[in-house]
């Protein structure tokens, strides 16, 4: 029984590897992304973003590699939100589907595991789904990322707080315990200390936690001026809804690392989303010019027309990953992994996502834009200066 299975698998694999011989006029990018499963809600931004970027680049003539015109191809697998499956799929992409380069999954935990595959096989991976500094702390040479460091997520927000009146003094920090959010919390504690803000509550919760009633009651009892919250979207949603039902609200402002920039989050909360602050490394602004899409606003329109839902920074980040490869491969004049890797380390260009340039450890450096939901609309508030005025301080629930 086992013998037959092994032989059959062997035969299938041989056949598949023959079939997967890539056309030598295409450069194939591969990724295993959460298209189904728990994280599919955000994972789809990557699958769709990659597809749109590849098609657009090909539409504009593809890339020129060493004088030869080449097209981009894309192979995306569904890792079903299973980290371990994703790892195996990345190996499959490299060895069976014979893709040239790798794009990343969503989520820092997945990026941590999957990037090990890239490093093992010495093939560059540009990932736009993991912001945790852990990813870049291992000294890997083949991993690049377009999400800015998790530690700095609240930097713009805290800077902004110093410029608003009434002056906020006390902060409650509530963060999940997964890699990304722990990075955020660690960085935030330092930032708060440097800004002279007092941390009156510093609590962690298990990721995937659905009930915040105890944390909220605890928060109410310390009555902070500001709540800084780090976690994932479903949890942010629950937190806000439960905060309303328990009548818990900070005196001045609350800010969330996720959710606020995303359309279905705002839709699910309706009016309860108002006054919530968040951050994004990207907005669909005409000021972000792009070689292929014109500018970010046109990109957003193209994305929404094709996929029937608006993009957020996840999608833009995914597009930036594809564009970074396009630039690096053209600069290297070849599809040799090491050469492309060296060019990726040097890329420096403007795109719809912003300025794409990687720090020595492989991670991009972009400021977070503070945003707020005002009357159902997403409004840019602050990067280094005020763009629009925030609705500050926020009113208590029973006064909205």
């Amino acid at each position, binding site marked *: 029984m086992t013998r037959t299975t092994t032989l059959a698998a062997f035969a299938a694999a041989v056949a598949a590897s023959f079939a997967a011989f890539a056309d030598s006029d295409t450069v194939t990018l591969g990724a295993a992304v959460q298209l189904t499963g728990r994280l599919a809600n955000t994972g789809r931004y990557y699958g769709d973003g990659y597809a749109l970027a590849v098609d657009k680049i090909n539409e504009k003539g593809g890339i020129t590699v060493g004088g030869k015109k080449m097209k981009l191809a894309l192979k995306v697998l*569904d890792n079903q939100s299973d980290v371990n499956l994703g790892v195996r799929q990345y190996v499959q992409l490299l060895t069976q589907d014979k893709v040239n380069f790798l794009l990343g999954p969503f989520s820092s935990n997945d990026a941590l595991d999957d990037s090990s595959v890239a490093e093992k096989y010495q093939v560059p991976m540009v990932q736009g789904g993991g912001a945790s500094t852990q990813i870049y702390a291992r000294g890997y040479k083949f991993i690049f990322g377009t999400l800015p460091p998790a530690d700095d997520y609240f930097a713009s927000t805290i800077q902004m707080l110093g410029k608003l009146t009434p002056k906020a003094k006390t902060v409650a920090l509530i963060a999940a315990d997964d890699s990304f959010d722990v990075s955020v919390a660690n960085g935030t504690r330092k930032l708060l200390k440097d800004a002279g803000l007092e941390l009156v509550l510093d609590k962690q919760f298990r990721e995937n936690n659905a009930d915040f009633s105890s944390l909220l009651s605890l928060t109410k009892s310390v009555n902070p001026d500001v709540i800084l919250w780090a976690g994932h979207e479903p949890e942010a949603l629950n937190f806000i809804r439960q905060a309303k039902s328990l009548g818990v609200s900070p005196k001045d402002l609350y800010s969330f690392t996720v959710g606020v920039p995303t359309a279905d989050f705002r839709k699910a909360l309706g009016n309860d989303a108002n006054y919530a602050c968040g951050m994004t490394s990207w907005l669909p602004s005409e000021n972000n010019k792009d070689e292929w899409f014109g500018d970010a606003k046109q990109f957003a329109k193209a994305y929404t027309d094709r996929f029937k839902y608006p993009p957020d920074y996840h999608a833009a980040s995914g597009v930036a990953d594809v564009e970074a490869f396009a630039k690096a491969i053209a600069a290297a004049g070849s599809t040799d992994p090491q050469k492309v890797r060296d060019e990726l380390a040097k890329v420096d260009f403007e795109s719809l996502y912003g300025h794409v340039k990687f720090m020595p450890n492989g991670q991009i450096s972009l400021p977070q834009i503070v945003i707020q939901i005002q009357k159902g609309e997403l409004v840019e508030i602050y990067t280094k200066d005020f763009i629009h005025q925030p609705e500050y301080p926020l009113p208590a629930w029973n006064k909205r």
Partner: protein
Amino acid sequence: MIKAAIATVAVVVLLAAVPFIAHETVVQYAINALLLATLAQGWNIVGGYAGYPSFGNSVFYGLGTYGTAIAMAQFHHSFETGLAWAAVFGVACALIFGIPILRLRGPYFAIATLGLSAVMGAIAANVPIAGKNIGLILPLFRGDRMFYELSLALLLFATGIVLWVSKSRFGAGLIAIREDEDAAQVMGINTTAYKVAALALAALVSGLAGGIHAYWITFIDPASAFDGSLNVRMVIMTLFGGPGTVLGPVIGALILSGVSEVLASQVSSVASLFYGFVIVLAVIFMPRGLIDMLAGVRFHGLRYFGNNMRRYRL
């Protein structure tokens, strides 16, 4: 007897040759399948032979994963030492918690093991030396061939244990416990000692599987180490293949992982749908496992299916 031995050796040699002749992707899938098959065999000892359906064997796997990870990432020991730690962590857990938990019967035992697994996972997420919830990073090592051969060796070891169990007095004692525990006790079998030993054996192979997994995957965290879905999968694979048999779990594991893996790579988007259907149909048509079905069809032909349905439906 001689024929069976020669056939077995031939199969083992062929399996060992896989990484040298097969495609790398097959090796990847194979390592995963072999580790799952080992888990299934471990479960088989406790659930199949002794009749104690554990729903938390992933706790031994998780402890094994962490044992190796802590040894290698925090203390910079070698892989061999890491594996030793994995075995120790797993077996220690079985011995410490086995005695109180094995007093429970049936579904209560199942729930207690589930609870134990969840507690361990939650503890790992809170203990600094285990890296808390952000996990641990092991040194990078590219050597799939080594992992494959090691996993194969572990599976052979586990299957060997099950083979010994099936032919020994110890095994007969386990079966007696499964069929009628009170009678077994009256007959003079020290049921507690037998059950704990069975659990310890399961813990040993499951822990080692976890240790291999840790080094292979290089980054571990509580969610992936104490992966709850493993519990259901190892039970399913054993039941699919045939509990209380020597090869059932192996066949069940290899077939089901094969199906799942092929689906995930070829028809990626509808993979889970087909997988679910396969399982439902398997339970309806092969309620006593694949091995039983093969034997039954050989004996009774297609009437086997009809007989089963008549027997097990309302």
